[in-house]
């Protein structure tokens, strides 16, 4: 059996009488990449913050929170010492340079300057920011700052990385760059826990996912299992001239109408192709179903506010 890095049992968090995290259970094996998916306000960030002691959970019966054998309520420092935390928003000292920020941060881990210097070189090299060593934080783009957050989290050679929406708001190049780096880290044996609402991100780098909504876990599995178990293989999206489609209760298909598109799902490619052929190219989009379809099906298509 795989060794467990994180174990969470009966986890609850209540803010102002509303349950932000509601009886959550999951386990993260060491060396794996684990994703928490969910719409805004699902309780993803709160769950992560509980793991390193930033948020205190409720003490309900049978609860357990265990990160590498430590309970964050008691051993917050031990956990943070081996964990790199990458928040949603950057929190650097904007007046200082990249190097100074990293030097200060190394001190928080008790690294001497002699120990810190090669580490700083190494993490900047890893994340391809070596040329920005002397730059001020203000001079960095959003993508560079996010990469620098990752570099900072790597200073103490963490066993666990916790990333809160690591690529939200970034351009495709930076997103792929970050995904590549996370894959490399995983190969080196680092356990990765991330939240995201980019389905592609989850599909690309996560071994295992849970989908959360309103504080609850509503689905769990590998990305491919989640797709196979929850949705048909193919989707035909009809974008224009929707009214030309006649739903004749045909076999093998499932039809969903939402706003100004019609979605036709099927496991049978020929069935959807046949329908597609009756439209002009450009009126439709035929594709394999993906995690986003699963996500929308499970959490509902309406705004979650």
């Amino acid at each position, binding site marked *: 059996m795989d060794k467990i890095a994180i174990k969470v049992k009966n986890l609850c968090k209540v*803010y102002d009488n509303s349950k932000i995290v509601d009886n959550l259970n999951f386990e993260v094996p060491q060396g794996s990449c684990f994703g928490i998916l969910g719409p805004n306000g699902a309780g993803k960030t709160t769950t992560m913050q509980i793991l*390193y*002691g*930033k*948020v*205190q959970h409720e003490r309900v019966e049978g609860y357990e929170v265990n990160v590498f054998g430590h309970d964050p309520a008691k051993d*917050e*420092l*031990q956990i*943070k*010492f081996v964990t790199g*935390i990458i*928040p949603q*928003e950057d*929190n*650097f*000292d*904007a*007046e*200082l340079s990249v190097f*100074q920020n990293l030097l*200060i*941060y190394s*001190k*928080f*881990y*008790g*690294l001497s300057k002699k*120990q810190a210097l*090669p*580490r700083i070189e190494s993490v900047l090299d890893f994340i391809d920011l070596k040329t920005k060593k002397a730059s001020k934080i203000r001079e960095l783009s959003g993508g560079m700052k996010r990469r620098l957050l990752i570099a900072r*989290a790597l200073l*103490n*050679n963490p066993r666990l990385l916790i990333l809160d929406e690591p690529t939200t708001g970034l351009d495709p190049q930076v997103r792929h760059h970050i995904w590549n780096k996370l894959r490399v880290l995983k190969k080196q044996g680092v356990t990765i826990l991330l939240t995201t609402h980019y389905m592609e991100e989850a599909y690309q780098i996560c071994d295992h996912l849970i989908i959360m909504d309103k504080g609850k876990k509503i689905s769990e599995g590998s990305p491919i299992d989640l797709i196979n178990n929850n949705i048909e293989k193919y989707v035909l999206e009809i974008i224009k001239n929707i009214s030309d489609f006649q739903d004749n209760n045909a076999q093998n298909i499932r039809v969903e109408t939402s706003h100004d598109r019609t979605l036709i799902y099927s496991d049978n490619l020929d069935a959807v192709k046949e329908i597609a052929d009756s439209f002009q190219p450009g009126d439709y989009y035929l594709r394999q179903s993906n995690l986003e379809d699963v996500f929308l099906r499970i959490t509902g298509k309406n705004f979650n506010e």
Partner: protein
Amino acid sequence: MNNISLPSFAQRVYSVWYRHVLVYVKNIFSNGIPPFLEPILFLLGVGLGLGGFVGEINNIPYINFLAVGIIAPPAMFTAAYECTFGTFIRLEFDKVYDGMIAASIDIKDLFIGEILFAGTKGLFFSSAVLLVLSVFGLIESPMAIFTVFIGFFTAMMFAVLSLLVTSVVNNINHFNFYFTGFITPGFFLSGIVFPLNTLPKYLELFAQLFPLVHSVNLMRAFCFNSFKISLIGDMFYIIFLILIVGYFAIRRLKNKIIT
């Protein structure tokens, strides 16, 4: 090379202190010059201007009386600003603390480091005043060097008081009440520009509640080499205030940050 063991409490507090020092020193020109200019302005404006009308206080020329009084207030002001506006901005706007406590630093380390940094600033500000006074020939006793350490404790005292206020406040503008209602009266009722025994008795007793009185008492004693038994009371006031208010301030801030 990875560090295998957790940094000790002292290392963690030092790292927080070091962060503050580095950020402060970054703007050394704008941060470091005013502490030297302010006492000069004060001596010229109040000392020379007002001093001409006052003559002597307790057989001491007014300018000498005033000079010794102005070593303490900069330590108070710098700590009060640092741990109200400064702390609030780090907490709510810049989110600097969130970054720090994501490393192996806890809330206790964070604020003890901050209190010690405020103390260090107080030591620096009091030293600047003492240096200016010495250049002007207003310091006679070599024992006056101890005032810089009293400046250190004065600043820590106002650091903990200000952190307590910051733990309560949700709007940065509310600090105005603290400054107008507590810091400014504390300045005028601390025997700096006039001796407290010229006040009505009840007001003189009331003034003893203000922290700065005790710093000024101690500083005067060291500058004029005249020690009284009541100074022990002043010392205990300062030490107990730092410990007790500091304890509650950190506890309240912890509840504010760890939700």
